[in-house]
């Protein structure tokens, strides 16, 4: 077990408590930067996709994990981001303008719809966001001059400072661009969570009535959280558009919303790390199933590829098992394993058992 000797409040304010965890992040970032030299084109494209999903996952995590607002409509913000970015770039604006604008438009849209929506909570909010998703989907089809309607639109190739970041022509550059965006957003997110704004999000999630008593404007806080959430998701949507290249409204289906919700739930609600772990699982698992199936076919001659829906079924079973046996998600499991070894042999099985809140009152509603 590591004991940290603190001599100033800055040790608690810093993102990392000790140099060791700072070094671990640096090593991880180093590996990620060097990834194009370590793996082939196929895996690099997969890693890019995972990073985009992690970005979208972080977006949803702000709303679901840290402010307690469930959203089934986040595919709508992905789509707003993707179409805004593509439309602005097709109109001749550079990526460096169109990309932040995509996040801003998605964020403002999210904040505006949040003002009436955040008065609801739980399942009602989920249904309201689902309605928003349906409206946005219809709007995309109706606004044909901008979105290309049912036919779809093309996300132009990214070039700035004379360097190409084309998804196919310069995949390495495209990967680094996305890695940079993800690193920047992660840093901003971590900063947010150690500041008064992040604490007000957690306060609203855990007890609205005492948040009010502490002077927190609950409606404004929720709208801000939802706006930031949809803004980050909009950025991910823009990148997703570039990653796919040519897309129409079908790319941003309700299944994307549900998958995003799975990313944050399986990854671990309330942990930034959870968005990454969830994204790795969601993007990696179908690939893994496919690889294992091909391996089985090659070694034993059993071809499971002819059975339709088998991949989806296996995927679903794994997810269901996760939700039943590890509700705190992958990151929660990792914390338990780490604690077990850190305080070995003092870990007890009930250490992480969720305690029922004692005497929770209904009187204050």
């Amino acid at each position, binding site marked *: 077990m590591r004991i940290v000797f603190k001599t100033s409040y800055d040790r608690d304010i810093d993102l990392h408590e000790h140099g060791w965890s700072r070094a671990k992040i640096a090593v991880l970032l180093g590996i990620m930067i060097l990834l194009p030299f370590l793996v082939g084109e196929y895996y690099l494209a997969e890693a890019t996709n995972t990073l985009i999903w992690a970005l979208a996952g972080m977006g949803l995590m702000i709303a679901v994990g840290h402010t307690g607002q469930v959203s089934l409509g986040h595919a709508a913000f992905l789509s707003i981001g993707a179409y805004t970015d593509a439309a602005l770039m097709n109109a001749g604006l550079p990526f460096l303008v169109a990309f932040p604008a995509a996040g801003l438009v998605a964020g403002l849209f999210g904040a505006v719809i949040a003002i009436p929506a955040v008065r609801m909570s739980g399942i009602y909010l989920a249904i309201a966001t689902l309605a928003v998703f349906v409206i946005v989907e219809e709007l995309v089809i109706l606004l044909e001059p901008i979105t290309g309607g049912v036919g779809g639109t093309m996300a132009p190739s990214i070039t700035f400072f004379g360097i190409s970041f084309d998804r196919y022509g310069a995949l390495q550059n495209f990967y680094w661009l996305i890695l940079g965006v993800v690193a920047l957003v992660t840093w901003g997110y971590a900063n947010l969570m150690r500041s008064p*704004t992040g604490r007000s999000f957690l306060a609203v999630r855990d007890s609205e009535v005492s*948040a009010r008593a502490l002077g927190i404007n609950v409606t404004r806080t929720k709208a801000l959280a939802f706006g930031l959430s949809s803004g980050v998701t909009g950025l991910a949507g823009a990148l997703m558009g570039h990653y796919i290249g040519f897309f129409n409204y079908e790319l941003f289906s309700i299944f994307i919303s549900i998958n995003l919700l799975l990313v944050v739930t399986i990854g671990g609600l309330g942990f930034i790390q959870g968005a990454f772990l969830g994204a790795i699982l969601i993007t990696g698992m179908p690939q893994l199933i496919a690889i294992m199936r091909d391996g089985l076919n090659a070694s034993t001659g059993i071809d499971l590829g002819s059975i339709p829906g088998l991949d989806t079924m296996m995927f679903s079973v794994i997810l269901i098992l996760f939700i039943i046996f590890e509700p705190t998600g992958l990151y929660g499991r990792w914390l338990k394993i780490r604690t077990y070894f850190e305080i070995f042999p003092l870990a007890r099985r009930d250490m992480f058992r969720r305690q029922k809140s004692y005497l929770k009152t209904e009187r204050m509603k």
Partner: protein
Amino acid sequence: MSLLEVKDLAVHFGGVKAVDGVSFKVDPGEVFAIIGPNGAGKSTIFNLISRIYEPTRGTIHFDGRNITGLKAHDIASLGIARTFQNIELFDHSTVLANLLMGRHTHRSTNFVQDILFLPKVRRAEREHRRRVEEVIEFLELEAYRKKMIAGLPYGVRKVVEIGRALAIGPKLILLDEPASGLSVEETQDVAFWIEDMRRDMGLTVLMVEHDMSLVNQVSDRVLAVANGKPLAEGTPQEVQADPHVQAAYLGTPEEDAA
């Protein structure tokens, strides 16, 4: 001039008159207790002062200002802090984070500055932390600083909630049954803290309490209420000697006969 002045306060939920015509004044530096049987409307008075309920009638003045029309989230910045009868802490955060949330009214940075974590944010965080450490030292919470609320015993949670209210840096603190569910020793600690809040921090305390030994020990004046109506007001001894108060707690001879 009195710090808090409640005049003819009433709130009706449909036909239920939870509070009906309660008036009292709390002077600066005073410990004022509200007592009464279950369902008398004591906590409802607190919820009216902290603007969670909308009064049907009456006014509330704090520091010479009418606060009856304010929103619940405007109350803390005026200098009114409160605790809850059944503990409303942020369960999935540490004690330290809970206390820092109490500093919300003193925040000086907006969310953009927070995301970029400008040097200004760090300076403000150090100041928040320094203030919170004073509260931790006062309430002797050092051992629990980094513990999650969800795993703490009831008595400690109760203290953390008082700490969170103190972190606001209030002029008036509303304590809703600070001793309920506490052991005799813990209740004695609460009594000492209330004394210190008044003497060292210059706070005014308004509390709802059932534990008469605590009320007798710390309060200057007591208001007894029953069925939403005021029964008696005065020193703890005067109020306990009042026949109406005794009747409300013990029943009247006629009722016993029936």
